């Protein structure tokens, strides 16, 4: 039966957005808030979350109309020609490569920390790269469908973890609520909005949406849930582990996990946590790899997926392991401005496409 799936269902869009935004919780990026704001980390997280939500709201509600099934690349080509297409494609590929490198590095560190402290970092990274390669090599359907399994698994894991730690938390650790000062907490803390930078990937997923109207709602709802989960995690983390952090450099979720005690049999559940975090890392990398391959196919007519993915995987692996002359600090620092560049392009292009939207497209 010829039933090729070329469109995302709303539930799949929801799951993908949720996973992409919640994945960073497992990285060290969530320490950013504590580093800047101290005990005011939850307030910083709330402010950043609200800003992120506003940006997501504007970019989805106002511009995410998908009038004729085009994504950001085809829209740029339509309005700015081939040059515009190449430019946006390169920006997106660079962003995706940097984001992948960051995720790969962080998750490899986490896996190494949990499972094999004495092994080299590349050993853990190889597993993620293989998973991402396999995930991206499969049809898009595979990634879309697996998201529906990972999202509830991820949500359950995080909630169980937070509830488990909650009973051991001391909420006096949240005071003073402004932490290192109002300027840091509300001003500098806003840079934490970069935590949600992967939302730009939604504009690449755009053309696969079957129902733009419900998709907009799904994106917004998933983003809201992910942001709430992130705020709750940072709140719990700040309440459990007093500032200043004595274990700087460790992953906050991992630190929380080490505190979980379910009785004599499950003395430590961090190994089981590794399964959940690994799924997220592998999934995020698969999505990134898949999108890079799709951009290369769309803009540069490089259509052979496996042949494309091999050099992509190798480059990102080398970049992530520091074998290329770009440090991980540069990589993580460049993600923030690049997010705004892409959002700026989206804000520039999408108003041009708002004409002629037929009601029939709005199911």
């Amino acid at each position: 039966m010829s039933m090729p799936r070329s469109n995302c269902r709303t539930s799949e869009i929801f799951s993908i957005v949720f996973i992409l935004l919640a994945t960073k919780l497992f990285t060290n990026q969530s320490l950013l808030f504590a580093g800047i704001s101290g005990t005011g980390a939850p307030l910083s997280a709330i402010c950043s979350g609200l800003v992120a939500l506003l940006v997501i709201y504007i970019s989805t509600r106002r511009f995410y109309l998908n009038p004729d099934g085009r994504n950001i690349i085809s829209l740029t080509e339509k309005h700015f020609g081939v040059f515009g297409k190449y430019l946006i494609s390169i920006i997106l590929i660079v962003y995706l490569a940097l984001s992948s490198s960051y995720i790969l590095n962080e998750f490899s560190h986490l896996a190494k920390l949990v499972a094999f402290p004495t092994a080299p970092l590349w050993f853990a990274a190889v597993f993620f790269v293989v998973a991402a390669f396999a995930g991206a090599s499969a049809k898009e359907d595979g990634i879309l469908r697996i998201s529906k399994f990972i999202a509830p698994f991820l949500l359950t894991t995080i909630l169980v973890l937070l509830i488990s730690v909650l009973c051991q938390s001391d909420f006096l650790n949240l005071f003073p609520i402004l932490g290192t000062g109002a300027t840091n907490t509300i001003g500098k803390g806003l840079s934490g909005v970069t935590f949600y930078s992967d939302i730009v990937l939604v504009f690449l997923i755009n053309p696969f949406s079957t129902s733009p109207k419900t998709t907009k709602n799904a994106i917004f709802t998933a983003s809201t849930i992910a942001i709430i989960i992130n705020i709750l995690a940072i709140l719990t983390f700040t309440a459990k582990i007093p500032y200043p952090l004595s274990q700087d450099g460790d992953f906050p979720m991992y630190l929380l996990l080490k505190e979980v005690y379910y009785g004599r049999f499950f003395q430590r559940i961090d190994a089981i946590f590794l399964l959940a975090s690994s799924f997220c890392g592998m999934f995020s990398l698969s999505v990134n790899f898949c999108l890079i391959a799709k951009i290369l196919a769309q803009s540069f007519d490089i259509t052979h997926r496996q042949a494309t993915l091999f050099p992509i995987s190798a480059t990102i692996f080398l970049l992530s392991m520091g074998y290329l002359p770009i440090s991980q600090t540069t990589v993580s620092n460049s993600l923030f401005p690049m997010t705004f560049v892409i959002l700026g392009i989206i804000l520039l292009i999408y108003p041009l496409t708002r004409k002629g939207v037929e009601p029939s497209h709005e199911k």
Partner: protein
Amino acid sequence: MAFKKLFIYSENTGKSHEPLDNPAPIYHDNNPGKNSYIKNNICDKASYTYTTGMVSPKLSENLDFIKDAFETIKNFDLVIREFSVKLKNTRINAFLIFYDGLSNKEYINRDILSPLMTEGQGLNPEGMPLEDIIYGQLLTQAPNSKIEKMESVIEAVGFGNCAVFVDGCSCAFVADIKGWSSRSVGRPVSEAVLTGPQEAFCESVMPNIALVRKILKDPNLIAENITVGTKSKTPCALMYINGITNISLVKEARRRLKAVDIEYVFSSTDVEMLIEESSLFPLPQLLKTERPDRAASMLANGKVIVMVQGSPFVLVLPATVSDLAETAEDNYVRTLEANFMRFIRIIGCALALLLPGCFISVVLYHHESIPTDLILAIEASREQMPFPIVLELIIMLLAFELIKEASIRVPDPIGSTLGIVGGLILGQSAVSANIASPLLIIIVSISALGAFAAPSVSISRALSVLQFLFIFLGSIAGFLGIALGIFVGIILLSSMNSFGVPYLSVDNFESGSVIIPPIWKRERRPHSLRTQNSQKQPHISRKWKGDDTL
């Protein structure tokens, strides 16, 4: 009849050659259907039958062709009976052919030879075509057909029919008098149930179709005949319910079956491998059942079934994971019990697949996950073991697989011996010999029990193979390796389709779902099948509830 040309068979090369004095090819590749049956070239190449591939009005031409096509020189079981049809005062030459053993001789004598040789005497044939007299008034056997294409006649005879050729008739009369020995309807072996029907499919297509029709009694139930195998001409039945099943699904199944280009097909497994999406995928992509009630239930849900002559297992397509989690027993026990057993089966499958790998991961990489006392006990039990734990586990699993495989082959009278040997290997003797630790024996046993709890043998076998992969991954990277295996496995499952239906389709609270609802709640057919009529029963099927007048 003289042989005009014969192939020369070379003993040295094993290849047949062209006739020495006639280098021209006997049949032409551009029209193989017309005269591809000509082998020994004993018939006149200029004859009508040879040139057109149709039955000739001249009996001798047909006889030559048949003798050549069936190689009667070598084939001793083909019977050619020449006789005369008596019509009033005239006698018309005729002959019939059939395979001894495939056709029923009693029917031939009673319904074909006897009427043709004797009962035409009282008929007045004037003004009526000979074909109509023979077909309409003499041949009493039903089903009966007139066939003009010689190729079709040959196929029909090969399938146990009897073909009658009459001089002056440009068609052959083919009577369906199959009489081969076959197994009757028996009890299901691989899908035995305690409380359900005890009928199973047999090896013949027609009785199998009848078994399904007997259950469904639906005039919309269609059974299409599709022949698979260019030489074996194996009849297959494509069955579906018109008005329910998705037309695209039927078209795709028909297209795949018709597009199979293979010489011989022996079983439904052959057909399964020929029409499934990926042969390397470890899990079955089509469901196999030997139970007519289960096949009928699948048809009622909007699926398509394929029956293959010679196989007691019918193929149900498409198959999804929720179908694979189902057993025949599910429909014959109470809902709560069925759901509990299904849950146990799923847990069993997960244990079979992951437990050995997770055990290795915990012991090698994640000691902290289990109580200190337990890990100390594991280490203490392994003190005397000469092998690394991975090798120990693999040895025990291979030993178990060996016992499993041997138990299938071993004759019943000595079957109990195998149990004793198995008990020794996977028991105290292995522990005493310091080959395996007691905990490892428990792990292997639980894993084996989990695999046996799998709903079908094919899943059980797939799990047994895949668990070695997880052992490998667990041994090199602990839970990270296990995570990689699960992720790639789910990606593969997610990207797999079975006849256009996603393999991981889970239609909750519908028929064929993971959670089995009570029968009155099974209102809709599986959404993933996109059936023509998705409503299976009204919202309220137990109308007696709340209405005392009924």
